[in-house]
Structures are given as C-alpha cells and as structure tokens.
C-alpha cells in the first residue's frame, strides 16, 4: 500500500521538517515519481523505529545514522542468508 506525504505524516506522527531532515539523511528513501513522493507501510515502520531510537532509547542523530546503517547491513545479510538457506534446501533436501 502506498500513501501520500500527508498521509504518511499523519500515520507516522511526524512534523514535515523532521521528515525532510530524515529524507535528507537518507534514513527514509520514499519512492519518488515524476509528480509526487509515495510512502509505503515499510517506511512507516522504519519511521517508528527511528522514533523509538531517538525517543525512548535516547540515541542522537549520529547514533541513528550508525544504527540504521548497521541494521540495513544486517537485513542485507539476512536476505542473503535466507536465500542461501533456500538454495541448500533445494540442492540437498533434509534427510529423514
């Protein structure tokens, strides 16, 4: 599901300046079309993560930057690992 910038601001509970800063930092990478910016549920969940980090966990902007970068690497790894796992299952099905 995609949503407009306004819908996104409402569902993530963000100020527009905050959002612009986050996009500038590439913490959020919404889909840009020729005429508008579209956000997905994934972006909302990611915004909640950033809010948790900055709010409850007391992480500053530099910290958020580092954490997101590591999380993105972690998910890259998890994705690669999941595929590897799938390929191994195909190549050598589990014996009884």
């Amino acid at each position: 599901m995609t949503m407009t910038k306004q819908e996104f601001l409402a569902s993530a509970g963000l100020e527009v300046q905050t959002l612009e800063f986050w996009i500038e930092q590439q913490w959020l990478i919404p889909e840009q079309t020729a005429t508008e910016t579209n956000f997905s549920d994934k972006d909302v969940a990611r915004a909640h993560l950033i809010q948790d980090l900055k709010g409850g966990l007391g992480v500053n902007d530099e910290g958020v930057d580092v954490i997101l970068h590591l999380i993105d690497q972690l998910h890259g790894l998890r994705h690669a690992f999941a595929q590897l796992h799938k390929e191994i299952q195909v190549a050598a099905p589990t014996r009884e």
Partner: protein
Amino acid sequence: MRNPYEVLGVVPAASSADIQKAYRKLAKKLHPDLNPGDKAAEEKFKEVAAAYDLLGDAEKRKRFDAGEIDAAGAERPPQHFYREYATSDGGNPYTDSSGYADFIDSDEALAEFLRRSERARANRRGRDLHYSLPIEFAESIAGANKRLTLPDGGTLDVTIPPGLVDGQILRLRGKGAPGTGSGGPGDALIEVEVRPDPRFTREGDDISLELPISLSEAVLGGRVRVPTPTGAVTMTVPKGSNTGTIMRLKGKGGPHPGGGHGDQFVKLKVVLPKGPDPELEEFVSKWDKGKAFNPREDGTS
C-alpha cells in the same frame, strides 16, 4: 500483566532517571528491530515498553501508585516493526550488501550464492512513472497524437487510441525510470483525463447531441450541419420534425472494441426566433388549425 516495576527491574521507590536508565538498558537488548531474528523479543519488548509508558510518565506513575489505573491501562496499540518489512523482498532500497561484500570477492562456493543475491538487487527494474494527460472529448473519440512534457524537460509521445474513456491508463513500456544493471527500465503510466464537451454526452460507444433547429427547418425540413467529434457533417431534417425527434448518424460514435463504430444520436430541439416577431404572431393568429390542435389532449397535462 506483570507489575511494571518488576518488568523494568526497579524498586517502586526508583527515581525517574533510574526508570529511564532501566528501560533503555532493556529496550536496547529487546527492541525487535535490533533483534530481527528473535521472535520472542517482540513480546518482551512490548511488555517493557508498556511498563515504561506507565512509569516513564510522572502523571501516569502517580495514578498507578495510587491504584487509580492498573498495569493493563498502559497496553500499547499494535505496532508493526520495521523488521517485518525489511527482509520481505529483494527490491528493498534500504538493504545494504556491505555486510558481506568481502565474501563475494572470495572465490568459494558460498560466494556464488551471495553474488546471486546481490545481483537480484543490483539488476532491479526501474520504477514506473505516473503522469496525467488531459485531452479534448473529440480526441478521445477520434484518437490523437499528443506530446507530454516531462518535469525534467524531456518529452514523451503518446498515441491516444480512438474511443478512449476518461480515467483510462495508457502504459508505455520502457518509458519509466531506468533500471540498474540488466534490470530494464520501468513503464510510463499515463492516466488520461477526458475534458467534457458541453455539446456531447457519451454512453458506451454511442454519442448524443442536442441540435437546435429553426421552426421553418422543423416544418419544412432541410439540410443542417451537425457537429461530430470527427468534424461537422450534413444531415437532412425531414419535414414535420419536432422537438425530441431523434435522428441517428450511423457510425459517428466511438469505435467498438471488435471493429465498427457506435452511432451519434441527434436530438432535435425546435427554437423560435429571439424576441417577439409581429409577422410570426400575425401568421399564427390566423392559423385556425394550429389553434385547434391541443398537444395535451392525450392527458399529458
């Protein structure tokens, strides 16, 4: 629900700074997005977060201590964590391969798997770009060639097929954003908006039009010019035509999907000359048969 002090592992007399410290310590360990593979983390984190919602807010904590609200009062609305989306597909713009890029450079069997995973992301098809294009009613029936100016200054030639309807989306393959690697470009999706023409109404492939005619054309018949979406044509109005008489111009409607065309229906409307006309008044007052005719005789009124 457990006692929130127990959940956070603090004594009921703890200061708010201690409570925050305890929460941060637990949340760092338990936040589901910091533990993407730990299914149990989510439940634990929710409990900790709910406890902190209650005790981290001085007002709520006071009410809880006074027994006005219980621990369940702090239950959080369900939250979707980022990790639910992060590994769902390979086309994730956030995912980063630098966590295993060094393995790819190695020449082992493992590297091949990883490389494939990397390629799936690298060869991503470009995005579809959305545009909107307004056209005239006549163009929607007859078809047209339009040129769309893009925000980046480029242009896109769009062929409007005959018979297009308002809101229809045209897909121009490969005219979207460029892809990466061997992933081809996306498509351009053009939503066509048909500007209404006050003269015409369209129903399926048929078009209707109301055509004003003069009294003498109605009585005596004659040839009149009729606008159609593909240009004006000449039509014969038969003698004794009336307001409401419907004439059919065969094949002047929109095209059928399977070939052929719909029709244009022309509804005649007799219009008297503007302003009082002494000559007409004199003529009608002398016309006894006309005065004897009562169009309401059949009970219409």
